[in-house]
């Protein structure tokens, strides 16, 4: 596989919740138009790390990041970066599908409306394209005005992805997006992730190692707030360099 350019890069990133040191010197490249998977046991810091990439941790009182998170070479923790602008470029999909209690259309139009698009025709177009890109259009096109809460879990998760796509981000972060889904929905979601990397850069946190192996191009293994190993996914799963990585992927702990 040819090396892809870095869309994002963290340099000696440390993260603290008050006195708790959650991440230690993380140096991880996020390659453009590729899927980077973060694996590791619960509480290893992979979700915390993911949330530093779009500064979602800022919401938590007493949290602090040290080091750099570069997006196209610019540190997103610089004083002149507005986290609101950052999050337009770096979208996020959460563990539990979280559509708003509104119609499907309004869910999709939420982001574009916030960013100033009022024209109905333009909104229709964005909604349709985002739903098509999220492989949900055919299932919901006849009921766009119905509540998004009436969709199945798998449909809701694709809706949430479509909602992120509607904002036209460059990077999409996914925090265990399939953990609440059944196997069929999971497989649809994985197909979708595979298609999305044509146009987007994706970082996905997952508990499921088969999933990491199936969808990702690169994998980082986290343990106790450190990144133990990072490599091409194939290498991580077939020839890990670190003993701890090997123990984890062979199921000896975690």
């Amino acid at each position, binding site marked *: 596989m040819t090396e892809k350019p870095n869309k994002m890069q963290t340099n000696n990133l440390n993260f603290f919740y008050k006195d708790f040191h959650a991440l230690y010197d993380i140096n991880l490249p996020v390659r453009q138009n590729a899927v980077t998977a973060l694996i590791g046991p619960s509480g290893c810091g992979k979700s915390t790390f993911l949330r530093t990439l779009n500064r*979602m941790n800022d919401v938590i009182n007493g949290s602090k990041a040290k080091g750099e998170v570069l997006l196209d070479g610019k540190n997103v923790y610089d004083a002149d970066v507005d986290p609101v602008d950052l999050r337009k470029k770096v979208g*996020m999909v*959460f563990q539990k599908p979280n559509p*708003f209690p509104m119609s499907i259309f309004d869910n999709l139009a939420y982001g574009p409306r*916030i960013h100033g698009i009022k024209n109905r025709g333009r909104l229709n177009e964005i909604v349709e394209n985002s739903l098509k890109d999220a492989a949900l259009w055919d299932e919901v096109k006849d009921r766009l005005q119905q*509540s998004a809460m009436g969709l199945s879990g798998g449909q809701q998760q694709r809706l949430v992805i479509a909602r992120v796509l509607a*904002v036209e981000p460059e990077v999409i972060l996914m925090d265990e997006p399939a953990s609440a889904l059944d196997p069929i929905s999971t497989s649809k979601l994985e197909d979708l992730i595979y298609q999305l990397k044509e146009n987007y850069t994706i970082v996905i946190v997952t508990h499921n190692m088969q999933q990491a192996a199936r969808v990702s191009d690169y994998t980082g293994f986290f343990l106790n707030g450190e990144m133990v190993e990072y490599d091409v996914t194939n290498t991580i799963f077939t020839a890990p360099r670190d003993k701890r990585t090997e123990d984890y992927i062979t199921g000896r702990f975690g």
Partner: protein
Amino acid sequence: MNKKIVRYYEKGIKYVLALTAGTSILILFLIFFFLFREGAGVFAHVNILDFVFGKDWSPVSEPPVFGALPLIAGSMVVTFGAGMIAIPTGIGIAVFLAEMAPHSVREIAKAIIELLAGVPSVVYGFIGLTILAPLIKDIFNLPSALSAFTASVVLAVMALPTVVSISEDALNAVPQDFREASLALGATKWETTLRVVLPSARSGLIAASMLGLGRAIGETMAVLMVAGNATLIPHSIFDPVRTITADIAAEMGETVQGGLHYQALFGLGMVLFVITFFINLITDLVFAKTSSIKRGASL
């Protein structure tokens, strides 16, 4: 043997709970029955439409005239005024407490606001009479400060704790997921509050408003002291008014039990009952409509 006891126990609990639930419904029916029994007599003397829409309330003139419209209008104006003040203010305070205030401020402010609910209404009336009324008189340059407006302000303060604490609960019940999803789409804190949190909490906010209004429409002592007590249909919010509740409280002592005036006051009670019933009914209907989208029913 043991199983049998458990089964009787389970059944026993069920019946006890059913009994308590049934009692509250029974009490409601008894109240309605009692109101009707005591008050229905008045409608043998006065046409019900004349009673509700009559513009003159002179229960002690000869012959007495029972037109409750000034009192109904008084209650409406005062309640509406109180709602116009208490609902936006209360929801505003709740948004600040739930979405913006740091934890320590929130806890202290909540305790103080809930303490407001514990102040006896006669104390509010007293403060309204001695402090607020002269102030309003000076500010708006009025001949008399005892008016619908003064009563509205006092009632608004009294309804505020209800509105704030129920609104705050409603806002806290909005899942954190919604806020995070909105922030992650590049919305600001304020956009998130306005476009996601408030609409999601809508049914709770409506309940808070309606309970606040219910508190205001039923209040008697404070309005009796500050509303001015003129049985006239108000033409402006600064006119003195008499509310249904204040009228019942003021006149009940002078009536002969079972007499026409006595019956007329119970008739007023029925009117008040019907008004509150419709407020609750509307709330329920609005609830049913707004909560359907959450449950996923088609619109």
